[in-house]
């Protein structure tokens, strides 16, 4: 009993004291009997006197205080609800032709009008909104995942000796190669081939050509974190590198990752729309907002303004939420706030 750390709890100590002779060992456990040092003296944790806010609560409050966050959330929620429910009750499908009414403006039956092929624009817009939402969300998550793996690996192994530097250099050049590749042309090459299998292939395809800039930033951030004392300490304690990455590095860059993912949703939607617009994106049995815009007719503005407005509302709402999130997570960004 030389190490005081061996006394595991006050219960152990008092048991020890009860069993030993108090006069033979007056120090042991004496504090336990001191009324001034009893645990009851500490104020109760759940009392009203001390109230600290957790980080999550703080973020939530900061986010909800932002007016543009509310605007973004409301528009986004309305659009999601419309995408889910509108095709369920609307009487026309995206490929039902009403040729008698082709190229007529909005009416009570065709809410957004009919295009020159006799297709109902509202039905197509809502169906396209569904597809664009799924692709946007899926692509953003996958893009972040890819960027996280490449960026953190490159940043982490960069300072680990000669082989680490070589690996880091290879990954950086991979990033540069993907940046040089005209991604739109390769998307156009791949997309029709993969679309024959499933329209969901669009998600990995778009993610494959969108992760580079995020990975670059994540690499730079990781390089800074690897030099901090706690990561060094973890390394010297022999912690597995993957555990270090998950426990020490990712939580530190999580706020940036969340912002980037949010803004990535809108970028993915814009990319998918552009690709579908030129006919290399979503193919026939599915409709995307880009395909709807494809049937534009300058002499009949209602053929393109409603889908374009829905698309703009979607992207703007996501961007509003993303920027509000940035303000909430990073209060120091005030100087660079746009």
């Amino acid at each position, binding site marked *: 009993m030389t190490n005081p750390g061996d006394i595991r709890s006050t219960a152990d100590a008092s048991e020890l004291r009860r069993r030993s002779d108090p006069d033979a060992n007056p120090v042991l456990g004496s504090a336990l009997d001191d009324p001034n040092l009893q645990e009851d003296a500490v104020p109760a944790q759940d009392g009203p006197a001390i109230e600290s806010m957790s980080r999550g609560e703080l973020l939530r409050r900061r986010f909800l205080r932002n007016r543009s966050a509310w605007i973004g959330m409301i528009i986004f929620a309305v659009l999601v609800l419309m995408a889910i429910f509108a095709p369920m009750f609307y009487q026309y499908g995206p490929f039902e032709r009403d040729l008698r009414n082709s190229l007529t403006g909005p009416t009570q039956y065709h809410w957004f009008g009919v295009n020159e092929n006799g297709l109902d624009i509202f039905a197509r817009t809502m169906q396209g909104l569904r597809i664009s939402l799924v692709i946007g969300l899926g692509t953003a998550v996958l893009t972040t995942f890819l960027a996280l793996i490449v960026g953190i690996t490159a940043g982490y192994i960069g300072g680990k000796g000669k082989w680490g530097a070589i690996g880091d250099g290879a990954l950086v050049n991979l990033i540069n190669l993907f940046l040089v*590749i*005209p991604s739109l042309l390769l998307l*156009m090459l*791949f997309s029709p081939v993969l679309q024959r299998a499933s329209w969901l292939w669009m998600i990995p395809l778009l993610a494959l050509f969108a992760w580079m800039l995020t990975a670059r930033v994540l690499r730079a951030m990781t390089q800074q974190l690897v030099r901090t004392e706690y990561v060094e300490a973890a390394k010297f304690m022999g912690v597995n590198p993957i555990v270090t990455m998950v426990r020490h590095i990712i939580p530190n860059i999580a706020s940036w990752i969340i912002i980037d993912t949010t803004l990535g949703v809108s970028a993915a939607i814009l990319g998918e729309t552009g690709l579908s617009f030129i006919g290399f994106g979503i193919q026939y049995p599915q409709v995307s907002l880009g395909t709807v815009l494809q049937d534009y007719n300058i002499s009949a503005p209602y053929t393109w303004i409603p889908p374009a407005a829905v698309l703009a509302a979607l992207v703007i709402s996501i*961007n509003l939420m993303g920027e509000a999130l940035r303000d909430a997570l990073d209060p120091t960004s005030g100087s660079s706030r746009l």
Partner: protein
Amino acid sequence: MARFVAIRVLTYVILAFLATSFAYLLAAALMNPQEVLYPPIATEPVPYETAQHYLNVRNVNPDTPLMERYARWLGGLVRGDLGVTTGTNKSMVPVVDELANRIPISLRLVILGTIIGTVAGVLLGMVAAVARDSIGDRLTTLLAFFILSLPTPVIILIVQQTNQGIMDATGWGLPAINPVNPLLPEGSWASWKYQIEALVMPTIVLSLTAAASYSRYMKVTTLDVLGSDYLRTARAKGLTRGQAMNRHGLRMALIPMGQYFAFAVGAAFTGSLFVELMFNWQGVGRFAVSSIGMADVNGTAGVVLYTAILTLLSATLADILQGALDPRIR
């Protein structure tokens, strides 16, 4: 400085070569230009010898190993020959000729759009940062936010619809399609006037998107510079705000812009692709869409080579700009 640029250029050349090779191999592996020999309406098959000859001349014979076709294409590339158009385009036009016809049409769009967009974006971003929270700043920021939330086709549609509205109301408007009017005598003043007028709307579209993203970046970097120590020192030395900004701040704020410039040209190519499709310009972007659509392996590889060279040149230019601006590199 020279060494810095030389190493960068060498890296870019290697990257461009890899990108183009990658694109050729992908196109050759994924596309089926031989399908044109077997149309569904054919009543009897093409004779074997004829089919083989047809495919070999175009270097798209699926019986030849992929690497052998690639080696042949690479041999041509060294001699400045990119092969002939394939796929459903049976006319066997050399891709180099096709590109030579189309590059001037596209390039004027890309160059004008990038330069106007960059200059406007840098100026707007700087003004927005210096006069922070003024009406001009708020308006610029809001507009940039709005433009960046719209895909290029929608911006084009808005511009075209506005033009159409003006034309309906006043009877005068800009030409909505075609870069040149074939009915006007070539070289005449009317023909030049038409070409310039036709250039206005596409350039507006491209420079709007470029200016929107540039003004945002520029605003952020200028705000960083405005809060920096050396600018405060310059003010303390007795310079006015404008003098300090012009002499010390502007250069530092422009350094990161140099790097964005390389991406701006790539973005302008993508933008010009939509512009060419929707304004009916027979440029490289349109050629890209049609050659991928009709399984033209050589044409696709040619377009990728063009974009790779364009990116390479703009990245080099960005490095030179950065070297000129940033005294720490020299």
